[in-house]
């Protein structure tokens, strides 16, 4: 019994919980941005230090003009199905307005699960102490400025600065 207890204690001591996550979002579709936001918010809620780095098309997730109107791809997405599980014909996905309608439906379903719109989600992450960054190279490439970005964005940083933020032996970098 004692040994068992000692073993249990040992396991507890050896457990090394995650202390920091650095999440990279490089794609701008609805599901890619939300994957980042859900993981970031979940980390903040667990008391894990959280840095989120938006780059390339992922910048849509923190750009004021775009962040609340993200789309999910209706073409080239084999997992896309109509209600009832019927396959979604690629030809249909290419018709004007279809992607907007499908994306609207997705947003509605997420709202039912209490998933907030992107701007509010970013606020939730920073309210809990998470930090949001934009990639300098991508900002220059898309000709954006700090004022185009959500007020929740802390700074525009280089990839070198991002890696500096990823220090610590209990840190994980996650690429969504």
């Amino acid at each position, binding site marked *: 019994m004692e040994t068992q207890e000692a073993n249990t204690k040992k396991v507890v001591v050896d457990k090394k919980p995650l202390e920091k996550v650095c999440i990279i979002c490089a794609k701008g579709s609805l599901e890619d941005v939300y994957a980042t936001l859900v993981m970031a*918010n979940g980390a903040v809620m667990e*008391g894990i230090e959280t840095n989120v780095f938006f780059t390339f098309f992922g910048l849509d997730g923190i750009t004021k003009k775009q962040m609340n109107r993200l789309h999910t791809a209706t073409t080239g997405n084999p997992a896309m199905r109509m209600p009832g599980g019927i396959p979604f014909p690629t030809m249909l996905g290419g018709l004007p307005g279809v992607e907007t309608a499908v994306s609207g439906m997705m947003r509605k379903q997420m709202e039912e699960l209490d998933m907030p719109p992107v701007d509010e989600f970013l606020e*939730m992450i920073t*309210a809990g102490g998470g930090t949001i960054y934009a990639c300098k190279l991508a900002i220059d490439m898309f000709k954006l400025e700090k004022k185009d970005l959500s007020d929740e964005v802390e700074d525009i940083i280089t990839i070198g600065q991002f890696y500096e933020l990823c220090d610590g032996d209990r840190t994980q970098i996650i690429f969504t």
Partner: protein
Amino acid sequence: MIKTFCKTQIEVKVSEDGYLEDMSQWNEEIAHEIASEIGIELTDKHFEVINYLREKTEAKEPLTIRKVGKSGIVSIKELYQLFPKGPLKYSSKIAGIPKPTSCI
């Protein structure tokens, strides 16, 4: 698992993670003891949140920090200040309700 709270000598059933299994066994003294184990000193504001969580759990409504933030009791930022590093996890534990199953 049975847990005895040292100060109050109350015996309650808890899960492996230390969440009360029967929320009716909860009282304010237990809340204070769980909170001090976590390292939180409870104020009236904490109890407003705790009571809100208990009410919603009794009504079988799923809980998220967003919902608490919209309750009019605290903002999400204040919720994090009251229960650092575990706004929903620690508040639920102190409120004597099951471990939150929500991802948001």
